[in-house]
């Protein structure tokens, strides 16, 4: 369960989030949708305790991320890149992360297998392609077998097989009762994966609800999105 309550954030004197409020529930895939610069990454960074909001609270299972003792056992997060230092091998990276939360070394090879990187375990992270980095980042998120997944643009950089795999992985995770929150600007992708949709634009939540409710009278999620964010189709998109 993720609860974001009236988060406001100002960066470089510009307010980038305005009282952002929403929930992501267990057993469901929640899609966090918005155009570039809308505030998706900023919101997720606050949720993960990386940045501080000016006001408001972001809770995971009722607690602030900073207050979780071995957080990887509760939350798996994927942001930009893999988080692995370029000089480290994939396995070495995963092993220190595992150790930090009291997990055994053997978890490293297990999650490498899950994301299909077994053959690259001894390769340095600096040599990884974009898609491989994303997979390594996801492997890191899965180390503690968490009940909550927070993923920023998870399919970014993945090949078609990887995208399909990710979609099934997220659906399975939710089916097993996990809370899955993912940001994206790929509407077609989200329409196939998400149960609930939250749309953010210019730092404000413009609509949230079940996928069908958000689509409403529109033909597709994409139509609804353009209507809601007042971005002309054929404009910058």
């Amino acid at each position, binding site marked *: 369960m993720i609860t974001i309550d009236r988060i406001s954030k100002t*960066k470089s004197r510009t307010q980038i989030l305005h009282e952002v409020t929403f929930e992501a529930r267990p057993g469901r895939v929640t899609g966090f949708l918005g155009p570039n610069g809308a505030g998706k990454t900023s919101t997720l*960074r606050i949720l*993960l*305790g*990386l*940045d*501080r909001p000016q006001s408001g609270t972001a809770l995971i299972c009722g607690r602030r*991320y*900073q207050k*979780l003792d*071995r*957080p*990887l056992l509760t*939350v798996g*997060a994927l*942001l*930009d*890149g*893999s*988080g*692995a*230092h*370029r*000089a*480290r091998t994939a396995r*070495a*990276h995963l*092993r*220190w*992360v595992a*150790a*930090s*939360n*009291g997990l055994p070394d053997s978890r490293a090879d297990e999650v490498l297998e899950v994301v299909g990187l077994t053959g690259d375990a001894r390769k340095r*992270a*600096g040599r*990884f392609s*974009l898609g491989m*980095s994303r997979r390594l980042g996801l492997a*890191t998120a899965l180390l503690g077998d968490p009940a909550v997944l927070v993923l920023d643009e998870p399919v970014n*950089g993945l090949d078609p097989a990887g995208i399909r795999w990710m979609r099934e992985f997220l659906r399975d995770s939710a089916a097993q009762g996990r809370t899955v929150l993912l940001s994206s600007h790929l509407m077609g992708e989200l329409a196939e994966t998400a149960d609930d949709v939250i749309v953010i634009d210019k730092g404000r939540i413009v609509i949230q609800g079940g996928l069908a409710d958000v689509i409403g009278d529109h033909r597709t999620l994409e139509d609804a999105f353009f209507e809601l964010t007042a971005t002309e189709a054929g404009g910058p998109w």
Partner: protein
Amino acid sequence: MSPVRAELRKLLGLPTAWVGLVLGTLTAPVVLLLNAPYTRRAIAAGTLTDTSDLGLRDLGIGLIGPIVLGVIVVSSEYTSTGQDAPGARQLTATLAAVPDRLRLLVAKATALVLVVAAQAAVTTAATLTLTQVLYGEHAPAPAPARVVAAILYWTLTALLAYAIALISRNGIVPLTLLIINSSVVSVSYLLTKVTDLASYLPDIVGAQMFIGSADFPVEIAPVTAGLVMTAWVIALLVVGAVLFERRDV
């Protein structure tokens, strides 16, 4: 405990850390060996009479080791992890794993102290043994307290580098500052020519923790020197920790 173990692994898994470990451990003994012919002649000729600092005196050159280690504990968190995502850094993974920032800083400092104290002990032992072998009875073994003080000085220097890196959030500033100051031109030493207060700068005062007879402009007792050095380290660590605690990543 787990965060300390993780930080030890992170540090020892970096190639740059091994540069610091090897350089720091070997430089002092090698310099001692290179100087040996000259020192022997000086002893024979009677121009070098105070031999109580032989060995310990050369330890300063090895400080490059603790400086590099102290800096990269922090700077490795801030280097970009790849061109695909320029803003992505290891720090994101680190804080996701250990979100309590103070706890993280303590774990990092503990790992650093363990590694540097071990390195300092090995280097000091090697340097002093070599001094015995080279000069025999001309070089009396230093008092144990001075040996401990030397190891402590190395450790404090590593923590000083760590604190400065925390404040600057990169490796270039502290490395340039500390390495140039400790090897090429000592700005601190030049300053002591201008004002006696400069004698209380960390690198000048720190050396007096274990080197007695050198020509320091203001003589400071070893214990006082140790306390002043510790005060510097604590002050900078507090500034670094407060900034780290407050800043967005």
